[in-house]
């Protein structure tokens, strides 16, 4: 077994001075929203630990998570792969193929049983004995279970692995299933989004490596550091929402002034993610800032919550007319009014035809 380098050793050998190493640690601490006292902890962790092996599997997905990951600016994806983790398997990036690639999985289990992080992009389909996603001639779900058996923890990248995402949208023909419903006995960190923000991905991963622990998770298994607030809570267009200034149609007067996109379907008020603060592609912009409402892509089953362009979503009745709460409710209330009027009329008629019939009762 080769000697495992600590992160610090690798950095030093890359010509990084101790001084800039410590600076990196304090920046990391600040980047994670932690106090300066954590910089020392990070430095200590990185000095004493070898690079953690990561096995990155792909199920049914579109590879947008990997594409997002390599957009990371801080830290650079190249630095993550070369210096922070040991990416021992990732079929999108690895040089080997076929059985040479698959051998690496067994080697990792042999060398690092119980020590590697399993990063899952995409999800396994369960219909057709799993053969809607075949890898090395076998169902993907077998590979996932096998690698999960020996891992330390799982990171569920993106909405596919976390919730199911687009292939699991109604009627989910392949029975694509999120990781936590297939792997029940391992800690799972969900990093939802379609895709998640690059710096959120690298932030979660570096936290796990630097602190050697899972980030604190919310009720649904998402790291609180990035998923504890709605986009709406920290949206720079929030003052327009509170004022009642809305974009009524795309490219109208309000759109050109950057008004709130709530009326054209923005799901920022119901979506937990870091877009409005961390922003995308090096903190440059994010969907609302560019003029399109949030699709809610980090939320469970966001595909089946009705049109992306209405604030009031529907019951997900497929194939028929849209059934929004307002429409159904309005019809019910209208029906009640008509029913009441009819009943009142019938009561009068009944009263008159029955003459002086004595009635007893009630409200």
């Amino acid at each position: 077994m080769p000697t495992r380098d600590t992160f610090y050793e690798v950095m030093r050998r890359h010509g990084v001075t101790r001084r800039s190493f410590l600076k990196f640690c304090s920046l990391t601490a600040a980047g994670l929203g932690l106090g300066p006292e954590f910089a020392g902890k990070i430095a200590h962790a990185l000095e004493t630990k070898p690079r953690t092996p990561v096995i990155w599997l792909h199920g049914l997905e579109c590879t947008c998570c990997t594409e997002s990951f390599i957009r990371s600016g801080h830290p650079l994806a190249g630095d993550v792969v070369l210096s922070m983790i040991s990416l021992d398997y990732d079929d999108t990036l690895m040089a080997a193929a076929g059985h040479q690639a698959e051998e690496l999985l067994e080697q990792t289990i042999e060398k690092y049983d119980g020590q590697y992080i399993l990063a899952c992009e995409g999800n396994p389909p369960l219909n057709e004995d799993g053969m809607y996603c075949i890898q090395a001639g076998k169902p993907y779900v077998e590979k996932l279970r096998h690698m999960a058996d020996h891992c330390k923890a799982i990171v569920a990248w993106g909405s596919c692995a976390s919730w199911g995402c687009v292939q699991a949208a109604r009627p989910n023909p392949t029975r694509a299933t999120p990781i936590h419903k297939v792997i029940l006995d391992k800690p799972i960190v969900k990093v939802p989004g379609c895709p998640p923000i690059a710096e959120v991905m690298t932030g979660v991963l570096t936290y796990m490596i630097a602190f050697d622990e899972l980030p604190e998770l919310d009720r649904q298994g998402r790291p609180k550091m990035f998923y504890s607030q709605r986009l709406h809570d920290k949206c720079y267009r929030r003052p327009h929402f509170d004022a009642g200034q809305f974009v009524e149609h795309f490219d109208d007067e309000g759109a050109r002034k950057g008004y709130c996109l709530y009326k054209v379907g923005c799901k920022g008020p119901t979506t937990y993610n870091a877009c409005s603060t961390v922003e995308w592609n090096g903190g440059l912009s994010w969907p609302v800032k560019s003029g399109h409402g949030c699709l809610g892509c980090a939320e469970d089953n966001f595909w089946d919550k009705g049109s992306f362009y209405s604030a009031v979503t529907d019951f997900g009745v497929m194939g028929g007319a849209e059934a929004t709460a307002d429409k159904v409710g309005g019809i019910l209330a209208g029906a009640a009014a008509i029913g009441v009027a009819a009943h009142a009329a019938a009561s009068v008629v009944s009263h008159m035809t029955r003459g002086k019939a004595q009635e007893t009762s009630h409200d």
Partner: protein
Amino acid sequence: MTEIVTPNGFTLDDAGQRVVVDPICRIEGHLRIEVNVDDDNIIRNAVSTGNMWRGLEVILKGRDPRDAWAFTERICGVCTGVHALLSCRAVEDALAIEIPKNANSIRNLMMLAQYTQDHLVHFYHLHALDWVDVVSALSADPRATSELQQSISNWPKSSPGYFRDVQNKIKRFVESGQLGPFANAYWGSPAYKLPPEANLMAVTHYLEALDFQKEIVKIHTIFGGRNPHPNWLVGGMPCSINVNETGATGAINMAWLNQVSDIINASIDFIDQVYIPDLKAIASFYTDWTFGGGLSGKNVMSYGEFPALANNYTNESWMLPNGAILNGDLSTVYDVDPRDPEQIQEFVTHSWYSYPNPDQGLHPWDGVTVPNFELGPNLKGTKTNIEAIDEQAKYSWLKAPRWRGNAMEVGPLARFLVAYARGHEEVKELVDSTLTDLGLPITALFSTLGRTAARGLECSWSAHKMRGVFDDMMANIKAGDVSTANMEKWEPATWPKDTKGVGIGEAPRGALGHWVHIKDTKLENYQAVVPTTWNASPRDSQGNIGAYEAALLGTPMADPAQPLEILRTIHSFDPCLACASHVMSPDGQELAVVKIR
């Protein structure tokens, strides 16, 4: 079977040793390749199996057509945005919506940025390691590498010290024993031909390109809010332009536009000073590796891309033209009409689907998809442990699309061949000058390297084209037009009750079409026929083989245990299996129960 000749003129012989490569890594999605090699290790039979199926079009049925772009965008995160754009085009076609000029320019800019970034990432991160030996780079002389770099371009990062640092970085990485993504590969194989200095230069640029690619996509971030998966809009683009009014900070303003302009300049620099010189340098060591032509010298096709005129998707408008070439005859280019039921058809004889009439091809508007996972009698292994597939039966999750019954190759090379044959000035000049530099005839393009070269040239063409499109858009804004979206037909009440539309274009990987049928304001049927389905297609009812299978034939392998040559050729197509293994929506049909035999 011993030896057969396919109707499209390829000889298949499955007598020799079977070599299975699954997974093919460094692609998008899951692909399996099986080949038979003869006693001289030359590939005589090839089988391409699409390994995944997600059912997106089934999922789209009954949804709001204005939402479709977001669903189809998730067909692929690598060529992100292209399906969304084509979906918008298809819905706009069905509803007769005309988009404003600026929206057309912004869409073109985003698509060009996609081409530039996608081709760059493909070359360095998905393809280069088929030609570049990382371990050999360790023995390079940094000074000689510096001289090599300075002799081929003006790229400023070229000092001996710079290359020494990178070399040390790689050395430490290798010495750590944790080789990560470079583990268990084919380093030292005799199939690698580059001298150590060229290897070191290429590995250095592997890392630089990884850092730089994320800059190009910022054009998506500015106009679409993020990348991957930026936002689009039926009727135009969701970003508004406001350059000189109150509240301009809330829209696309001068600051954003200047940033776009800078990204364009930086992209042109990187592509022309790093990518293209690297491509030429690497190619010059492999000029005698002439394999992998396959269909490229016979049948190629392009739908056309980058409409210069808004709402005009014909050759009058396409910056890269529409056309099909048959039997390598560059003197005749046929028009490809996506609406003609006789032209584009999909077959499922060898695909894991069933049709009412199994051997008949169906035009996408009439498409049916009922999954039918059925393995042939000569399968080696079991249903859930396939050792060797039986290609006489059904063997792929991909359908077999055909143009007038012909298997076609699509992609950058196909686009360039069609443009070349159509007499496209810019393309002719790019191709001719490159061939002259390398001292090669035009037929040299019909190869794995030809595909790789065409992609590089197209990347450069795209980066430069962004400049022109951007300048045109600025002129239009200067003329007082700031409109980016046409909302006249936004409300479903304005739509026809029953209508069909098609959106065609070219993804970085090749010809892409989306066909929609909208009924009572909902999607009745949605179909996408994507580039990798064309290229990686299994056999059709006539036995015609697809582009991947054809391209592998005749290639000698240095060592069948190391599938480097297979990877080279397959990677030259830039496979995208998540795209390819989509599904057609059956008109009102339930998904069938699957039987195994």
